[in-house]
């Protein structure tokens, strides 16, 4: 299945790209996708995770076509 992965703010700088589409096997979790896109880097402890624009955590299971985003703590307002 294909997952669209997006990076924002300092996470975009760290990863050197805005987004990519990765093909993973059925049942893959957020953590599995992170392992694929991060080249073995540990996920920073403060990382926030969203799937289809709702917050979730690294154990969340994904489905084909999901949009997964990794980003640092938010600083709006």
């Amino acid at each position: 299945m294909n997952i669209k992965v997006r990076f924002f703010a300092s996470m975009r700088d760290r990863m050197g790209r805005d987004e990519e589409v990765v093909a993973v096997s059925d049942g893959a979790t957020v953590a599995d996708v992170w392992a694929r896109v991060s080249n073995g880097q540990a996920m920073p402890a403060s990382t926030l995770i969203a799937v289809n624009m709702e917050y979730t955590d690294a154990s969340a299971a994904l489905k084909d076509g999901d949009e997964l985003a990794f980003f640092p703590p938010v600083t709006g307002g």
Partner: protein
Amino acid sequence: MKVVVQAEAFDPYEEVRRYEQTLEKGKHGGVVTFVGTMRDFNDGQDVVAMSLDHYPGMTEKHIEQVCAEAEQRWDVMDSLVVHRYGDMYPSEPIVLVAVWSAHRAEAFDACRFIINYLKERAPFWKRETTPAGEKRWVEHNTRDPKAEVNDVVAPARADN
């Protein structure tokens, strides 16, 4: 309820006046507004400009969720949020939260809830420019020390 996320500078007081004209006359007893503006200092350093990154779609969705929650929790007539993204300069408005209610207590509580929740959950990121031209991401917001912590749940971080 109206939520606008835009790059253009705006006049928050004109936004409040214009939106209030669309509300039913004589029904609200007050409007509480919060206007967040850009400082020219942060963390002990001067700041000359700021760029605000955001996650289009998710920002609007989460601000709408918090306004809907505020309208359920308190006896609120209507609410308006305008939030900028992109490049901005000191003293410019960044965010407006306005809440209309029959009575002041609900309007104060709902307005405070919306801005605190927005700051915890709406996916915006500030990047400041110092006078030397250095650009740095702001790593965290200051919390409202009077926020009712149970009211404003921060999203789970990767380490918890």
